[in-house]
């Protein structure tokens, strides 16, 4: 592979024209030679500034104009114990972390995570992640092209986000198999979990369904993860949702491929003491399809009740649905349809504070996207009418509900309107 680094003098004043072949030493060559060589080899595989340019980055506002490449769409945010809003912002070749102390109006100077440029592979479903634990340790994940087409990387900061560790692949088999759809989750007991889809077990004989692996990240020394398998029959294009039960162990909610090619949802509960995880089916929509829905679900657990939201195009029902379970997922209430079926209701997220349950999602009418919010004050038994709380005229990311002390917000990124943190009243 031949790398050709495009030079932008505004970002990288100290670099002259450089062409690098394989892993050999960079060569300084004349401009004519450069042109000739480029035409001769006829390959342009990567355009990037490989220079560490974070020294030039300044603080800015929610419009990403202070970002080297204008930011990215698939941004993940989380409040830390310091009540700052922390974000991981992926661009095409680089990933950054910043924070806001004024609820998303202004942001700190972005800190570059990957000094070496990589093709960043993020999407609405395969998102970057960020959590800040009670000690202030920041953990981030993102996916990029590496030896495999897609690999989940992680990086941590133990100095309040001033510096981050060199990103490393999360999977111990990253060189051999794709890893993607990473999901970070911080348990109430302070344990950081990370889940991801892993193709290490994929064979021609077992083409249907993918595997989820996970590991915990509590080791403060050099990380030596041992990945553990959770399931091997999940739909590979829908992200995993995670919540924590009263025992502080994770409960995952995701789209499975059930016998007969049915892509409905199920729960996976991680058990204490290395016992095998328990899996059970949670939705029965009968969506028989061999396709990539790219439409993952959401789960929250509050007062020992499970609350789930999901998308289906099943034979039994189509659209977005909500249900709750009072017996830890053994039985769920009849699915409640929400969203306007004529406006492609999509990508729900859910949050609960006691019996106060909140749902957010987007709807699109062909020209404008609306951000919807719907609330219940009785644990999901009855719901107030949905209301539109924001709009966008260009490309949008999925909305996410975030909690900070007693306050709740919807975190929503969009190309035209930038990043918005909208309070839930």
């Amino acid at each position, binding site marked *: 592979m031949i790398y050709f680094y495009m*030079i932008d003098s505004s970002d990288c004043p100290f670099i002259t024209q450089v062409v690098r072949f394989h892993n050999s030493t960079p060569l300084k060559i004349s401009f004519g030679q450069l*042109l000739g060589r*480029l035409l001769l080899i006829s*390959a342009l595989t990567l355009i990037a500034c490989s220079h560490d340019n974070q020294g030039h980055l300044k603080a800015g506002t929610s419009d990403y104009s202070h970002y080297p490449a204008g930011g990215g769409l698939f941004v993940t945010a989380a409040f830390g114990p310091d009540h700052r809003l922390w974000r991981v912002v992926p661009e095409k070749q680089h990933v950054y972390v910043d924070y806001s102390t004024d609820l998303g109006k202004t942001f700190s100077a972005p800190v570059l995570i990957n000094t070496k440029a990589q093709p960043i592979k993020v999407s609405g479903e395969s998102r970057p992640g960020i959590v800040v634990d009670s000690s202030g340790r920041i953990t981030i994940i993102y996916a990029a092209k590496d030896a495999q087409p897609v690999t989940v990387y992680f990086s941590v900061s133990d100095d309040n986000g001033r510096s981050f560790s060199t990103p490393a692949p999360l999977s111990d088999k990253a060189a051999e198999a794709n890893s993607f759809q990473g999901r970070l989750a911080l348990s109430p007991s302070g344990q950081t979990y990370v889940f991801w889809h892993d193709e290490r077990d994929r064979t021609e004989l077992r083409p249907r369904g993918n595997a989820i692996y996970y590991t915990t990240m509590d080791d403060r020394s050099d990380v030596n993860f041992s990945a553990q398998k959770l399931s091997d029959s999940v739909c590979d294009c829908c992200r995993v949702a995670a919540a924590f039960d009263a025992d502080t162990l994770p409960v995952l909610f995701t789209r499975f491929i059930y016998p007969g090619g049915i892509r409905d949802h199920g729960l996976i509960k991680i058990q204490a003491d290395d016992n095998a995880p328990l899996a059970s089916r949670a939705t029965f929509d009968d969506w028989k399809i*061999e396709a990539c829905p790219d*439409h993952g679900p959401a789960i929250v657990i509050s007062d020992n009740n499970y609350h789930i939201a999901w998308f289906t195009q099943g034979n039994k029902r189509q659209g977005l649905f909500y249900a709750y379970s009072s017996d830890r997922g053994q039985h769920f209430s009849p699915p409640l349809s929400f969203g306007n079926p004529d406006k492609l209701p999509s990508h729900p997220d859910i949050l609960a504070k006691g019996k106060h349950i909140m749902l957010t999602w987007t709807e699109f009418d062909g020209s404008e*996207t609306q951000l919807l919010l719907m609330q219940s004050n009785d644990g999901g038994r009855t719901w107030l009418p949905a209301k539109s709380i924001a709009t966008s005229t260009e490309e949008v990311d999925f909305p996410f509900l975030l909690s900070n002390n007693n306050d709740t917000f919807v975190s929503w990124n969009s190309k035209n309107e930038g990043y918005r943190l909208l309070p839930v009243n």
Partner: protein
Amino acid sequence: MHLKKLFPYLLFALLASLHSPAQAEPSAFTSGSYQQLLASNANQPFMLVIWSINCSSCLKDMELLSKLHKSRPDLKMIMLAADELSAIDQVQQILEKNHLADIENWIYADENTQKLQFEIDPKWYGELPRTYFFDKAHQRTGISGVLSKQDYDEMFAKILKPEPK
């Protein structure tokens, strides 16, 4: 001369030399392209297959599509890659590998893919693969998911049916 100024010319020269003229690259699919596609195929039945390099189900479907293309020259097949324009080389590679590069191919060229999707079908959520079968009058049937040979044959029979006299 600064490299930055020269860059567009370099890029053009590189791209021109990368691809042989026999295998045209997919056309850029932007707002309005769907109507253009319909207009340029007026009065003829055709099949539109929407797929992506990131859709494992779509890739499973390629071999059968390749066979259908070979065995049914009477049926016009159009493919649309729901991928970023920057992935055009990867799209082209997959098409060439499956002997599908010589048909009418398109690729999303607007970052607002939701809008493109809506122009094609306001009821479609974007799941892939998505296949539309158009009869001569452009009455269409849209189906999500991988189809079997039997499914295709049934739909072809439907859209290729001679008009009643």
